């Protein structure tokens, strides 16, 4: 319950930051304040233990109504902490990795963001989800996580959009999602 509260306050902070930068009633806010902080953070919770490849990689860790319960050891499970706001397929199960697109896809430079809690170091990080585009839906490791996910009128937090803006060849087609870290969110 404590962690949940902490998480909520992070999301609220993002929302307020956005509002502050642009005025509550402005159009779309910017995460500028965040980014400055983020790029100064040298230590990242990147998993350096190598990937725990499970040959039998059925979709696991699916969220239910009891909420998102993050773990920090299996990047190919839906409940891996960085995936807290992914509605789609983990690229790690599609020929990519946690932060790389599969061969033959195109990486969109645009992203939606969420604030995810890492149980490994008890810290919260900002994740910028990027879609790998130009192939049909991967179909493996399908996750529906919605931690901090906002409606479409707050597009920068919405995971319902095909986030392929700026992808090669104008391919607005969804294949899978990677979970790179922007930086600490608190």
């Amino acid at each position, binding site marked *: 319950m404590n962690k949940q509260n902490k998480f909520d306050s992070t999301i609220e902070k993002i929302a307020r930051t956005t509002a502050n930068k642009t005025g509550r*009633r402005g159009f779309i806010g910017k995460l500028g304040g965040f980014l400055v902080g983020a790029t100064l953070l040298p230590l990242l919770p990147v998993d350096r233990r190598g990937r725990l490849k499970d040959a039998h990689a059925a979709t696991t860790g699916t969220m239910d109504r009891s*909420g998102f319960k993050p773990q920090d050891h299996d990047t190919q499970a839906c409940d891996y902490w960085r995936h807290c706001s992914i509605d789609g397929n983990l690229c790690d199960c599609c020929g990519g990795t946690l932060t790389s697109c599969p061969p033959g896809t195109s990486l969109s430079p645009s992203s939606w963001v969420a604030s995810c809690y890492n149980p490994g170091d008890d810290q919260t990080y900002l994740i910028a989800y990027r879609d790998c585009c130009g192939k*049909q*839906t991967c179909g493996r490791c399908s996750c529906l996580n919605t931690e901090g996910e906002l409606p*479409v009128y707050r597009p920068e937090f919405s995971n319902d*959009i095909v986030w392929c*803006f700026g992808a090669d060849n104008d391919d607005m087609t969804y*294949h899978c999602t990677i979970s790179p870290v922007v930086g600490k969110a608190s």
Partner: protein
Amino acid sequence: MRIFQHYFRNGRSAIAGKIAIATLLAASQPVLAGGAVPSQLGSEATVQLMDEPTILTAPPSDAKRVYVLDPGAFHMTSQIFTIDGNNSELLGMTDAGKLPHVLLGDNGNFMAVPSTVYNRIARGIRDDYIEVFDTRTLNVIADIDIPEGRFLTAVMEHMATLSTDDKHLLFQQFSPSPAIGLVDLEQQKFVKMMPIPDCYHLFPAPNQNVFMHCRDGSMLQISYDNEGNTQQKPTKVFHPEDDYLFNNPAYSRKSGRLVWPSTNGKIFQANLSESGAEFLKTIEVFSDQQKADKWRPGGWQPVAYHDDRNEIYLLADQRAEWTHKLPSRYVFVIDAASGKQLRRLELGHEITGIGVSQDDKPYLFAVSADDATLYTFDAVTGKELSSIDELGRAPSMVFLPRE
């Protein structure tokens, strides 16, 4: 109705013309496609039968006609299932491309489907278009080219709409800049991308008016003429920033009633008309005790509204925060005037989206993406009446005429 007849008179020949061009193109290839019966197959290829095979036509649409959309999970092709909701009988299927909209016009006599395809499955040349189908024959009666501007999201019912008089179709563009695409259905042609500010959803009102919901919590009223020139007027802010509204509100083209729940259990309502938006008193759905017991709304298409009964149907379950898109097993029926809970229906299945028929013996239609099944309930008693399964990969939305 006039438009519909127009399609039959002129639409057919327009389509036939397109096909003729396609055939000409094909004929310029060295070898034709497999259209003719291959000569080497001999007489068994056209064997005479004792049975008389035919192609069926669906019965006319009624209040309990239901369309179930399976867009998959952002897949490149979709299926729309036409179902007789009286008895869960499947009447036919319609194909569409990536993340299509399902727009029912003329009391359900036609269906317009804005759609997107690529010529190499998920890459290559993009083509956006609107197909109009006769809902009895399921034949295409118009195929209208539009700019490649559809905003591709998990399907949101009101990101495209027919005007209240079925003369126009409007669809939303997000990139490279916000706009509404205006399509003239009578002329069967795209008119213009009409620039708008950063607003979302399209709720039509009479006499070429449409309302959108903007990021700041206000609505924007847009009047447009036949050439796509607009006048735009904002309403007041009607909901706080931290009441996050669901992506799929209920809206009645007939009455102009907009019913919009938030993830924390409030319901915002407005009556939209040419003269503006009239906002109603916000409903707090759940009691303090229910909130303490973690009752919250949830699902993809979580709300339906019955015009004549003035009843709101809301998908809900006991759940943690931030699980607002997961399915629910219950529907709370709320009086839209008083905000009181009238009854709670236990559906017994994991339901993704709901709709209610607008007749005086209403049925509640509840689709489960998990089960790929449409369940039908008596909307008053909550009794499960029938069901139909094997509806594709992940059917997530239901559509009814006149809603």
